[in-house]
């Protein structure tokens, strides 16, 4: 690892609604709390995606920016190169769908994704809006996932990915699972933002780059998690 951790936020000009900036801020804060210097690059959609980053983030957005974002990422190729090098990626909502082979456009028409995850998405019948809680794949060793979802998408997982979690409440992918992962690429429908609600997920991304991390004082994260999970799960 180089001396500072490089975080790349992809296309905040197109895909950064629903507080997705929070994922960047949480990664920075949790790295800093461990004495790790970070450098964050905001990549506008008119600029090339750097290939040498450590952790890449891409967020949610409306239909049209999603289509534009997918086109530009495909044309650019920088993200593909970075992932092949072993960089980590967290893709949220519209950004998650973009990583698949196909997703639903403004009128439900199929739009090609960029194929970094073996998933395909389409438009569901109803908008999934609300709190979500889910048990994470035990292989990842993470506590219950919590967040807020707001999307029309239904996502089918192919054999090349594993479900990130199984839903306890909420819709997620639409088949009882939420999100998926393959290698160091994680996709999720969760806002909240996802890493603020799930600091262990932030630490997982960080540790893929830095190796094992010492625990830090993070009682505000835990207090919020406890409150949100209590609000949606039967005790």
């Amino acid at each position, binding site marked *: 690892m180089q001396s500072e951790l490089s975080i790349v936020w992809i296309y*905040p*000009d*197109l895909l*950064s*609604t*629903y*507080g*997705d*900036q*929070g994922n960047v*801020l*949480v990664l920075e*804060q949790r790295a800093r709390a461990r004495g790790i210097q970070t450098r964050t690059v905001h990549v*506008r*959609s*008119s600029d090339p995606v750097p290939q040498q980053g450590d952790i890449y983030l891409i967020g949610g957005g*409306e*239909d*049209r*920016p999603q289509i*534009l974002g997918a086109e530009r990422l495909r044309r650019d190729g920088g993200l593909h190169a970075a992932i092949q090098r072993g960089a980590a990626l967290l893709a949220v909502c519209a950004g998650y769908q973009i990583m698949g082979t196909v997703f639903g456009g403004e009128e439900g028409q199929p739009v090609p994704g960029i194929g970094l995850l073996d998933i395909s998405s389409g438009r569901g019948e109803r*908008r999934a*809006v*609300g*709190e979500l809680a889910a048990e994470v794949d035990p292989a990842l060793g993470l506590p219950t996932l919590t967040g*807020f979802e*707001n999307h029309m998408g239904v996502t089918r997982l192919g054999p090349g990915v594993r479900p990130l979690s199984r839903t306890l409440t909420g819709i997620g992918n639409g088949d009882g699972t939420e999100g998926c992962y393959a290698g160091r690429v994680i996709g999720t429908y969760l*806002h*909240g*933002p996802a890493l*603020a609600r799930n600091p262990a997920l932030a630490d997982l991304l960080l540790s893929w780059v830095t190796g094992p991390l010492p625990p830090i004082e993070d009682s*505000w*994260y835990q*207090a*919020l998690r406890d*409150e949100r999970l209590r609000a949606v799960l039967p005790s």
Partner: protein
Amino acid sequence: MSQLPLRAQLASALGRTAATLSRATGRGDGSVIGGRVGLMLEPDLLRKLAADRKLVLVSATNGKTTTTRLITSALQELGDVATNAFGANMPAGHVSALASNKDAPYGVLEVDEKYLPEVLDTTNAGLVCLMNLSRDQMDRAAEIWLLAQKWRRALAGRPVHVIANCDDPLVTWGASTAARVTWVAAGQRWREDSWCCPECGGPLDRSGFGNGGQGLTAAQMADTNWACRECTFRRPEPSWVLDGEYVTDPRGQHWRLDIQLPGQANRANAAVALAVAETLGLDPARALPRLRMVTSVAGRYTTVERDGRSLRLLLAKNPAGWLEAFDVADPALPIILSVNAQGPDGRDTSWLWDVDYRILRGRPVLVTGERRLDLALRLAVAGVPFQLCDSFEQAVGLLAPGKIDVIANYTAFQQIRAEFGRAV
């Protein structure tokens, strides 16, 4: 206006009774419930009540209520004005507002952004005033580009005159299908939703405009203008220009605003109000004194007193609103922040992460509201020291007597207002 058909007269009378009841029982301002009763009885009521008046519709993500109030205040110079002063900004509220003042020759209606096409269609309003569009209450899926597109369709092919803020690219795009537009350079503080061209998706370049104004920082002066790098969509030439405290009218005359309402966002609202007033024949010399009479709007900007503490109440419903509130808040004073996530607030608190709270470093910050833990974590990550309080009352009690700023989102603000008996 008194020549309404009998059924409509009955419906509007019943609506007024329900509104009176609602106020008397303390259940609300009464404006929505009255209108709902009226609309149920006579779906065409709004159309009939709107006819034969000079009607202004006011819409935006932020500043609707305040701008409606400012325009109303100005037009009172010309005659009686019917208005939905309590922010009941959907058709039921409009019926209630117009029914309660049937003979007023002017109407100024605050309109929810999503309802603008419908209300325009029903009322055939001659003037529409559009100020800004930004992310708001996202769990209700207000996709703002789609919203602007609906405005375009609603305005096209209609004999309507639009007064619009050309510093907001999305508003410009939404307004530009109208037959006639008066552009006002009213400024844009929140830019996170306008990096891309609404016409083609290309990048918007910001560049120096240099309209030589007082009160703007060099940085603001440097990037007021905008243009798409890939298509012909660009900022139209404004007829009215706001520069800090001063508004320049289409004749090049400068007017010092000097309004009572604080902050640059309200100066923007006032600039737009002046343009609307002039369109209706009221020049700035007569409109300005009226704008200066407005001191608070539905409790916003009001100062209330409790146990030797003077609390100034600021409403912030979305990230752009928080920036405006920070602009008004005094860095030398302690500040209480209260956040809820009930239906009208949006149940998703993610937007807290779109707000840069670091500006609050260095002042005592107290955090309360139903979603105080969301805000607490947000501030902790931003490195802003704060104190968590179980209630607003507790927060007030923890602070020494003196001046205090309060910023709250929608239902949190209403709860605080209710504590002070809505007297504010």
